[in-house]
């Protein structure tokens, strides 16, 4: 079975630690997120993975929720970032 390799950086940590993960290309990408979050000991439910594109631009993996790892690798490459999700709803101060 073919595997793909991602380098996932924890962007919320100023030391920018990263993990290198190799997964079968048919792995649902949601599982990659869960595994990466576990490795960094952050909650997967409140985390998201975004990409590094060209010119250091960061694009949202808008199709990643229904994607497998192999498709994500083909479209976005191997360099990914894990960020904490924000949730807003509070009142104005």
């Amino acid at each position, binding site marked *: 079975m073919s595997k793909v390799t991602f380098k996932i950086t924890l*962007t*919320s940590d*100023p030391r920018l630690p990263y993990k290198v993960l190799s997964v079968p290309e048919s792995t649902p990408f949601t599982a990659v997120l869960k595994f990466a979050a576990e490795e960094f000991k952050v909650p997967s439910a409140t985390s*998201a993975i*975004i990409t590094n594109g060209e010119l250091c*631009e*960061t*694009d*949202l993996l*808008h199709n990643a*929720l*229904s994607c497998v790892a192999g498709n994500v690798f083909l479209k976005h490459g191997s360099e990914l*970032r894990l*960020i*904490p*999700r*924000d*949730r*807003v*709803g*509070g*009142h*104005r*101060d």
Partner: protein
Amino acid sequence: MAREGKIDWGMCDVEEINMKTETLLKNVQTGLPVPLPGPVKRSLIKGDFLYFYYGCDGQDDRGWGCGYRTLQTMASWIYFNCSPHKDHNKIAPSLPEIQQALVSVGDKPASFSGSKEWIGTFEASLVLDYLYDVPCKLVHVRGGGAELEQVAVEELHRHFEKHGSPVMMGGDRDNSSKGILGVCTGTNGSYLLVVDPHYFGSKLEKTELQMRGWVAWKPVSSLDRSSFYNLCMPQTDRKRT
């Protein structure tokens, strides 16, 4: 009567929501003076949009809907400034439609529809991409203060110069959604042009909204330095007419 945690949308039907939406104010920031004296670098939103806020379409979402309202403001900009999408002749999606979109893309379970759950910039990015084919750039700004001036301000200048579309800003400790319409940098720091979705009440005129601070230049130094922030920046230059 609403079930626990669920929304009672009341007597507002779709037509009423659409009618109320069409009466919303456009470009509420026009006429605001520059916040800094002397030479400045100023980068601003380009194009029309409507100001969405708590209860503006008859649906009372106080305490939970501010992220949705900022998303609606962004959607209205796309409506006025981008190629028409075949499925959308509405200025902005309603709150139920936003929730349904998130269920449809698989980010939320079916029970999310009809709830009062908060959303953030990641969800906003998913919805804009799903409904309008507009990809978004997400920028994470770590807490501590330094990155606000160094990272966020630079990103916002680049964004408004290239795309000109409104930005959504959300955080953790700072859990109030902010619509960002511009950025201004002088020798002593930067200001963000913020449109606040937390207003609730009768429709105000533009000058009154500005006087009360619901749309205003805010110093970056006034943001919560202990909070991280995420910026959702629609990459709309790919969708311009």
